Each structure stands twice: as C-alpha cells, then as structure tokens.
C-alpha cells in the first residue's frame, strides 16, 4: 500500500514539470461539442494520431481556459457558440495568447417545437415575446406584468391553449441565444420599446432579457432530450432547443414556423429561418508545431466531408455554411489567419 502511494506521488511529481503533450486538447461550448467530437474522432481515425480530448465547459468557460496561457497545460482549441468577446480577447492577449484563429464552422438553429400531434402554428417573434416576457407594454405603451394566459389572448389566430413553454435555464448558452435572437427582436417590434432602446438601452435590455417566472415558462434543465420527452407527453406545451434535437426526433416532435418559415436544413442554411446563430472554433496558432496534428485537425474540420452540405457534421445536425462563407472558412483554416483586435466586437 505504502509502495503504491509512493509510486503515485512519484508519478505526480515526475509528470508535472515536463509533460510533453502529443494530444490535442479542446475546450468550450456544449453546443459545438457534438460536432467537434465527431471531427476529433474522424481525425483520429484518418491520421492514426491520438484522438483529441474534447471538454464541454461552456463557451465562457472555454475561453477562460483557452486564454489562460500558452503551453502544454493550456488547451489548443476552444469551441464557441458565439464570437469571442473583446474582454476575452484582451485577457488572451494579456496572457500571451496573441495568435488566435477564428473559424466559423456552421449554424445552430433554435426551434420552438411541439409534439407531432399538436396543431401547426406560425409565431411571430413579437408573439413569442408577448408570451414569455416578464413585462409587456399595454395598449398605452406602459410596461405591465405579463397578463397573457392563453395563446389566443395574444392573437386570435393562435390556438386556444394555455401558454406553456419548456426551455433551458439562464445558465445555458441556448437560453442566451434564444433571448438575443427572439426576445430582443420581438421587443423591438413594439414602438414604445423601440423608443426605450434609444433612450435607455440598459432598461430595454432588462425588458427583453427577463423571462416570466409565473409558471408559463418552465425551466426544464440543460438536457434537451428531457424537453423532447416532456413534449411528447404533453401536446399543449412548446419547447425550446437546438435544431439537431428536432432533426433527430423527427416524427415525434415538429418545429413551429417563426415569421412564416419552418425550421429545416435548407431554411437555416440559407438564412431564411431567422432564429439561428453561427458556431465557431478558435485555434491557438502559437501551438501549431508544438502540439502535433493541429493543422490537420483544422483541415479535417473545414473539409467538405465534414463541414460540407453532405458532410458528416450535417448528419449530426450542424447546419452548413453557405458556399461563400464555407470557402472563406477553409481559407482561414489553410492560412491560419489570425484574428486582429479590430475584428473583435
């Protein structure tokens, strides 16, 4: 026993200072995770190199780790379901992570879905805002607590159903995207709120970011599979989750039209379905050469058989970039074009 303990501690000491890494390490967004892992696996098989380790830490957590420094103890890639923020970019720079390559890999659609047996609906973003915001403007444009209980109170064309929407909790990146893509736009459809945006941007943000807590919106946890299961059981409810889950569970559930467009591969890809966000991977160029396989990995990711319209990532639910953007991404990957400060918002 003592000997074993000794061996372990010796190992720990020996391992810490000079640990030569021959395996790519990737951190970041849980939304990008299913795609990056698929690429990692394909990369491992194709090259015979060690399969990269992909950690799901969330976009923010990923950047935190990514930007901590250059060296074997820091990851080589970070997945992100949004573009890097200025503050993150600056932290990176401060820690010596100066050469970052940003590669857009595709889109993720957000869907408002219901059980397959539910009636077809067509929501506008404004209607969704009215259904889910904590406070909505009344006839005079004054903010009041959300009074709507039924969909048809919002608009007579909507079904006479209780408003019941299952969605992710505030900690989720999907939730962030949802409020940005739907709620903000929905709020702007009101004149009074549009005016407010100009006068007091902070207060406006408070309005569209606040989701009602009176039971109409149910925080169903981070696990989208769970929401799918609940929708199957309850045809009156709607759920919010990523497009890949909709696709995988086709037949059980279906996506509602938003602004007249139903979510599908094509509509997201050609940007006619508006509730979609771009996904990125960020590479640490300074590691290229030290950690083997980085260039090959990026090449695999941007290759047609992965990212293309018929690629395996599409099978996994990633919505491919339009041809021009795909070409640009492949160029960036090939040249390892680093991100400059002026490109970061």
């Amino acid at each position, binding site marked *: *026993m003592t000997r074993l303990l000794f061996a372990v501690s010796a190992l*720990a000491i020996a391992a810490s200072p000079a640990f030569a890494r021959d395996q790519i390490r990737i951190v970041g967004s849980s939304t990008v995770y*299913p795609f990056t892992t698929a690429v990692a696996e394909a990369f491992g098989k194709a090259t015979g190199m060690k399969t990269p380790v992909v950690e799901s830490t969330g976009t923010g957590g990923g950047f935190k780790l990514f930007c901590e420094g250059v060296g074997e103890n820091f990851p080589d890639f970070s997945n992100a379901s949004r573009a890097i923020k200025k503050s993150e970019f600056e932290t990176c720079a401060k820690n010596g992570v100066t050469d970052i390559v940003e590669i857009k890999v595709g889109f993720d659609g957000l869907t408002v879905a219901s059980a397959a047996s539910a009636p077809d609906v067509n929501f506008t973003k404004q209607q969704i805002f009215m259904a889910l915001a904590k406070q909505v403007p009344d006839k005079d444009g004054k903010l009041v607590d959300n009074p709507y209980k039924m969909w048809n109170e919002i608009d007579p064309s909507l079904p006479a159903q209780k408003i019941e929407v299952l969605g992710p909790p505030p900690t989720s990146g999907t939730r962030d995207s949802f409020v940005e893509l739907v709620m903000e736009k929905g709020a702007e459809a009101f004149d009074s709120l549009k005016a407010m945006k100009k006068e007091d941007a902070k207060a406006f943000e408070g309005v569209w970011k606040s989701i009602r807590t009176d039971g109409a919106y149910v925080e169903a946890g981070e696990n989208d599979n769970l929401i799918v299961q609940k929708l199957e059981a309850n045809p009156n409810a709607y759920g919010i989750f990523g497009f890949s889950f909709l696709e995988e569970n086709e037949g059980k559930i279906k996506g509602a039209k938003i602004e007249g467009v139903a979510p599908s591969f094509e509509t997201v890809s050609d940007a006619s379905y508006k509730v979609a966000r771009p996904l990125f991977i960020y590479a640490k160029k300074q590691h290229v050469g030290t950690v083997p396989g980085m260039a090959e990995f990026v090449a695999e990711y941007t290759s047609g058989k992965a990212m293309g319209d018929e690629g395996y990532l599409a099978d996994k639910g990633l919505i491919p970039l339009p041809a021009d953007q795909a070409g640009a991404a492949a160029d960036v990957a090939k040249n390892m074009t680093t991100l400059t400060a002026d490109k970061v918002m």
Partner: protein
Amino acid sequence: MSNNALVKKRYAAERRFKAYGLAAIGVTTAFLLFLILDIAIKAMPTFFVHEATLTVNVDPALIDAANPVAGDYLGLTKKALAAQFPDVTSRGDRKALNGILSAGAADGLQQRVLADPSLIGKDVTVPVALNSGADLYLKGYATAQLSDRQKAWLDALLEKGVISKGFAWNFLLNGDSREPELAGIKGALIGSVLTIIVTLALALPLGVAAALYLEEFAPKNWLTDVIEININNLAAVPSIIFGLLGLAVFLNIFGVPRSTPLVGGLVLALLVLPTIIIASRAALKSVPPSIKEAALGVGASHQQAVFHHVLPLAIPGILTGTILGVARALGETAPLLMIGMIAFIVDVPKGFTDAATVLPVQVFLWSDLPEQAFQSRTAATIILLLLVLFAFNALAIYLRKRFERRW
C-alpha cells in the same frame, strides 16, 4: 373487561404500525423497481446489435499493400453492399444505400487486413456494422433517420439472411465515439478503475493514519476538537467544492495534467478522506479497550498495542467504510467537471496520466447527445454503474460478515 379492550387496542396499534412499515417498504421497493425496470428497458437495445455479414473483395487497386493503413476500406465495404442490390444504380440511391452503414463499418475489415496483409486481393467475409438508425429499425423501434427505401433495403437484407443479431461486444470493448453504434464504455470503465486506484492509494493510508492519530495518540485539547469538527463538516461539503479545490491546487499550482485519472483520483481522495477518517475512527473506537489494556498489561508500548492489536481488529470496519466512501467517489461527477474529466475521449487510457473519463461522467455526456441510440447507451451505462456499485456494497457486506468478531 376494560383491561381486555385495552389489550385488544394495543394489539391493533401494533398491527397498524406493522402495516405502515410494510407499506413504506412496499412503496420504496416499487419506486426502485420502477426505476430499475425503466432503465433496464431503455438499456435493452444497447446489448444486442445487428450486423450485416458481407463478402468483400479486397481490391489491391484500393488497398496499397505497401501502406495498408491508408486504404479506403469503407469504399470496399460500400461496394460489397452495393453488390447485394445490383438494381440500385443512381448516385443518390447509392448514397442512400450507404446511409445504412456505420461510419465504422469497415473497422473490422481493416483490422483483418492489417493483421494479415496476404488477404489483399482476396475475398474476405466480415461482419459489417450498421448505423444506429438501421439497428434501431431492425430492433423494431421507430426512427426518423431512415427513409422508406432504406427500410425496404434493410428488410431485403434481413430476408436474405445477410443480417444477424449478436451481443454488442462493441459496447464493452470500445472507447467513446460520436457514432452511437461504435461508442463503448471501456475507456470510462478503465478510467474509473485508474481513478479509484489513485483515490484508494492516497485516501486509505492518509485516512487511516489520521484516524489512528486522532483516536489513539492526539492529546485531547481545543485544537484536536477543532480538527475533529472540521473533518466532520468536510464530509458534508458539496463535492463540487473539492473540484474547485482540485482545480486551484493540483492543476494551477502543481501543474498536474488535466483530465487525467491522477488528478481525478487526487480530488476524489480529498472527497472521501473525511468519510474514511470518520469510518476508521468509528472502527477504532469499536475495538474494546480491554484488548489494548491487555497488550499494555503485558508490557507492549502504546504504539505496539495499537498496531499489533487495535488496528488489525479495526480493519474490517475501516475497509467497510472505505469501500462505501470509494463507492461514493465512483458515482461522483461534479468534482470531475472542474478538472476536465468531462471530456470526449476516444482512446482508452493506458496510465494514470492519460486523458480519461469515468462511468458517471460518461452517463452525463451521453445523456446530452441528440442521437436516439445514445439514450439507450446512457441507460446501459447506468446499469453497469449500478452493478459496479452493487458489487462494491456486496464486498463491504462480505468483509464485514467475514471479519466480524465477537468479544
């Protein structure tokens, strides 16, 4: 008479109490059974898998004998499948037909050829993995992944006897994968074993030493009281805190490699240390003082009395406590989140410093993936984890019974 009535009332109360107890046990058992049954039913599809047995011509044009690794084995396999359906000719249909194959369909063939390069140029009959959608369809589950034509092809293959059903060894022998039909728990299982070895190697000696010192040698003063209270409190600290501690200390200060069983074991050792100390102290305390006195009485020193007599007698109790503590560690996910063990790792770890994940984390990861087939893999992994935990608890009970002494 009234006395008699009182007696009757008393018996009635006793019967009622018994009924409540039985009801409570019944409800608990029912819930547990329901849970396990539910998981077991969900897990069923994982344990069996459909494979097509195809005869593949290893075309030397596609497989270079000089460099067999780089050959397009998948292409060969696809060709072999196409040979089954000569009427499928259009490019789109061929693509749809290939869609029933797994991304790892050619893995078996590749292994055979790599092991025996003389096969190049010959016909080889190998099992070919189908993709998870096809497998689910053949098992009778509804799936949206397949078109009606694909379903028809599968039915045809089934009729021809090309498709057979077998035990899903893949699930036990493979590492993680993004393809559900290829994903296995071997990596997580080995990761768990390695992690627990580190945990045990660290927590057991440290815990026992601490317990021995506190119980037998430490002076009783405010300092030891404070230490004791803190150890007891530590046992109740949420496990994620240990993850944060591990991140701050082991990763950032000592630079232990991330995502490895070494750092996972270190963190879990911290987690179970209080449990082991408390259990060990209880075990040491339960050794009758008369045994120690007897040893002191024949002139053993305090240390001899403790190490020759008290500790050996406490070992069953210590082991029981340790096993229960380790079983808890085995089921932990939260602290590992912080130190990067929640990761997609394909390669089965070979040592304490290889990137690895553990069983509960595998459950956590798979449960979040969109593919239907991963849901059943999740359930199967839960079953496996439960089995391991049962085994641990059974071992604890066995040890307790085996070494239980009366004095």
